Every structure is written in structure tokens, then in C-alpha cells.
């Protein structure tokens, strides 16, 4: 029964997202390609400057660095586009009064939170996959750099980084359902986050220990999601529905 309700609500959220944000999705893919182009172009310039021409070691380092740089596509893009979707799913629905009829059907606030978070994340993940495909195509056809794939890299790009993004979205969602000035927070938080990650990756990508940082990020993310879920369970129903004074 709950699965059926979950599926129905998820379908509603996804339909709304697709119908509202087609243009933004297209822009986001372009944005991710621009960022990746900027980062990889810097690597190529550094390698060319230091080696004069590609040696095997430099070439491998470049292939590795380019692969690592893809790790940041998920936190950037899932967080960015997911947050955009959350402005509709969480904030707009709250202030338009749309949560009241839904919550009055008897579904719990926590259940609704899970659906909305899942919808924002899954839509973001779908856009992220498109971004990754577009970026890989750019590596192959524009830069002509074959990425040096490894198990850790694949797990980190497609699993750990998205989980990190999910935890960030979970934190945003709690903020959006707790504070009334959520719209201001909505516009500033992801920008700060994206800019920080961009600054980090473009300056010191080769220094980061992939395994350590991924494991730590995964653990912290899971803990954060758990904390967010607990907070949502404690919030007053009226506050979430946007009628709390």
C-alpha cells in the first residue's frame, strides 16, 4: 500500500519537474560541460607547460586527473538541479497550500519528505547521468583524452558522490520546511556550495586521496541523512504545511 502511494507521489513530482524545468535541465548540462572544459583545459595546459610534450607518465596523470574531476560533477549538478527542483517541490508546494490536502489524506510528514527528497534526487541523478555522458563525449571527441577508469573511480562517481549530494539536499529540505525565508536560502546555498567545490577541484585535484575522502564523505552523508530524517519527524505538521505561525 505504502509503495503504491510512494510511486504515485513520485510520479507526480517527476511529472511536475519535467514539465517545469526542461530548459533549466538543458542549461545545466551545458553548464557542467563548461565547468569540465575549464578544468580539463587547465590540466592540459599544465601538462604541456611542464613536459613540453606528452610523456607516458604525464599522459597517465592527465587521464587520471580528468577521471577524478568527474567526481565533482555529481555534487555540483545533482545539488544544483536537485535544489532547483526542491524550490518547487518543497517551497512552492508549502506556500501555495498544496501540502495541506496531501497531508490531510493521512500520510505522514516523514513519508512525504522521503518522496519529495527522492524525487528531487532522482531527477537530479538523471540530469547528472546526461551531464556525465556529455562530458565523456567531450573528453573523447574534443580533448581526445581516454579516461583511466578504476573500480574506485566508478564507485565514487556513480555512487558515493551522488550520496554526498543526497545528504546536501536532505539538509536543504530540512531548512526549507523549517524556515519561512526559505526562498532566500534556496538561491544562495547551492551557489556557495558549487563555487566552493569548483574552487577545490580546480586548484588541487591531484592531492586528494580518493579512497579516504570517499569513505569519509559516504559516512558523513549517511549520518546527515539520518539526522535530517529525525528532524523532519519532530517538526510540527502545521509548520511543514506552511500554516504554522
Amino acid at each position, binding site marked *: 500500500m505504502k509503495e503504491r502511494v510512494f510511486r*504515485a507521489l513520485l*510520479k507526480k513530482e517527476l*511529472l511536475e519537474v519535467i514539465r517545469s524545468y526542461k530548459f533549466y535541465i538543458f542549461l545545466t548540462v551545458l553548464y557542467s560541460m563548461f565547468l569540465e572544459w575549464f578544468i580539463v583545459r587547465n590540466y592540459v595546459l599544465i601538462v604541456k607547460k611542464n613536459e613540453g610534450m606528452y610523456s607516458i607518465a604525464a599522459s597517465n596523470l592527465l587521464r587520471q586527473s580528468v577521471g577524478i574531476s568527474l567526481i565533482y560533477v555529481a555534487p555540483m549538478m545533482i545539488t544544483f538541479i536537485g535544489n532547483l527542483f526542491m524550490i518547487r517541490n518543497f517551497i512552492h508546494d508549502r506556500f501555495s*497550500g498544496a501540502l*495541506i*490536502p496531501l497531508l490531510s489524506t493521512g500520510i505522514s510528514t516523514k513519508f512525504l519528505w522521503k518522496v519529495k527528497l527522492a524525487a528531487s534526487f532522482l531527477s537530479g541523478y538523471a540530469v547528472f547521468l546526461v551531464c556525465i555522458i556529455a562530458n565523456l563525449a567531450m573528453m573523447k571527441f574534443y580533448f581526445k583524452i581516454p579516461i583511466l577508469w578504476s573500480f574506485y573511480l566508478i564507485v565514487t562517481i556513480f555512487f558515493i558522490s551522488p550520496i554526498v549530494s543526497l545528504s546536501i539536499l536532505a539538509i536543504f529540505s530540512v531548512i526549507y520546511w523549517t524556515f519561512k525565508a526559505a526562498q532566500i536560502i534556496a538561491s544562495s546555498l547551492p551557489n556557495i556550495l558549487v563555487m566552493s567545490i569548483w574552487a577545490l577541484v580546480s586548484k588541487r585535484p591531484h592531492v586528494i586521496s580518493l579512497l579516504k575522502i570517499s569513505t569519509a564523505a559516504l559516512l558523513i552523508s549517511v549520518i546527515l541523512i539520518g539526522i535530517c530524517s529525525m528532524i523532519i519527524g519532530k517538526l*510540527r505538521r502545521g509548520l511543514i504545511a506552511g500554516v504554522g*505561525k
Partner: protein
Amino acid sequence: MNSGVIELSEVYKSFGQVEALKGISFEVRRGEVFSLIGPNGAGKTTTILTVLGYHEPDKGNVKVFGKDPSKEYTQMGEKTGIMIEKQGLFERLTGFEYLDLFAEVYGLQVEIKTKRIKDLLEIVRLSSRANDLIRTYSQGMKQRLCLARCLINKPELLVLDEPFSNIDPEGRRSLIEILSKIVQETKSSVLLTSHDLREVERISDRIAILNKGKIIKIGSSASLKFEGKTDVSIVIRLKPGNNEAVISRLFPNSNYDAEKKELRVNISNDEDRNRIIRLLIDNKITILSIYDDISTLEQAYFSLLGEEDLK
């Protein structure tokens, strides 16, 4: 025993320094249409949100189907249909998709779901627009869709907050017709708030006047008119040939139109009406017809509010 579907007893609710509800008590009986009327800020929406469990009272008891709505709301959901002032529609869905979503949430069986949605769309006259996005609907159509949504689970209780606001007179008339028909057919209990006193009078069994967080009066529309001390009179058409002298003697303070043969007498309750009719019959005066010429609920409402403000 006719127990209340909704029971509020001495409910207080404050928001900071503002006392929104100051000890209100009422019950909505099974199958009854109960309306709350009052000026803006009287506490109508706070009452509705308290009944729905979105506000927890500071003091007093609220029971809906015998349960505390702020704690046991998951058990109320399937028996209740709600329509609030903010329509809160998902405007990027079509009308059909919107109703389908709620049908799924209420767990309607797949085989009856589509038929129910089609029937409801037919009732609220939206069948031809079922596959259009809600954002393209007029305000009246959106209100009717909200009504269809709150009926999808065949609720025992309808909670309607300002259902006639923001729609044109035609849309309002259409909505009230649909609502009256549904209430008659389903025998659902209804808790309604509205500023539209004419529509309230048409549909309500009992009405409560709320002002500054307190209930001033509760009763049927007729009893509120009596309590509001507004003019209520009956007009009796008499058969030509009756003894006019007798009529003048029997009703010295009344208004008798000799040309129309119409006698107009002020009354203050239903018993007065019966007494006058008996008096006429006892004096062998033949009655052709009788009708009430009563003031509107609006007059009674303002009269009662005025009295309250003078206190």
C-alpha cells in the same frame, strides 16, 4: 444517539500575543451542514486548521470521529475531504492526473478508480477539460476540481474553508448546486466557512457566528434571525368577503392591506405563527395562502455582530 462528528469544547489557541480562539465550543452532527461565519480575523480558518490537526489547541478538546486530530490524523484522512482557501493545486498536472494522484493516495482499487474519477469530473463539469493542465483552468474550474478531489474517497466529513471565494457569481452558483446535490445524496457532514451569507443560508442546517475568537450565536438561519431581532413577519392572503372589522380587532397593531386582502403580522418565533393561524381559523376567517416575509441572514448577522461590539 446522534454523536458529533466534530466536537470542540472550550478550545483556546494563541499565536504569541494574539488570542485567535477564546474558548469556542460546538459540534457538527452526523449528516449536518454546519457553517462558521464571521468577519476577517474572527478565527474561522484557525478553527478549521485546528479541526484538521494543523494547530494544537493551547487548552480545550478537539475530537474528530472521536479522535484527537493533531495526534491521530493518519486515521482521520480516509474519512475526510478538505478544501481550503488556498487551492494548493499542482498546476503542472492535468485535472485527470491530479484526481488520479489522490485516488492512489487513498488506495482506491484500480478497477473502480478510473470510473470514480470520470464520474466526479462529470459531476463537477470538467470532463471536457480533464486532459488539460490545471494551470489553464479558470478560478471556478479550479474550485470545482478541488471539490472533486475532496470527494474522491467518498468522505463522511467535508471540511470546506471559503469554498466560494475568488470565483464569479456563475461559478459560485454552479459550485453551490453541485455541493448541495452531493450533500443530499451522500449524507456527509460538512463544516463550512464562508463570507457569502446568502449561500451559507441556502445550504446550512446550523450556523455559528464567530467574532474575535468567540462564538456569539449558534442556531438555524431562522433562529439567528429571531435572535438578531430583525423583522420577521408573515403575510396572510385572505379570501375576499371576510369581516374586516374582526381582522382589525384581532390584530390591532398589524398591517392590513384591504385592497390586496393581505394581512402582515410581525412574529418573533415559530409558535407565534401557529397561534395567529389558529386565531384566524377560530374566528372563521378563510386563509388563501401564507408566506414568511423574513429578513436576510445578512441583516441578522450584522445585528448580532453590532450587539456583540457594544458589549
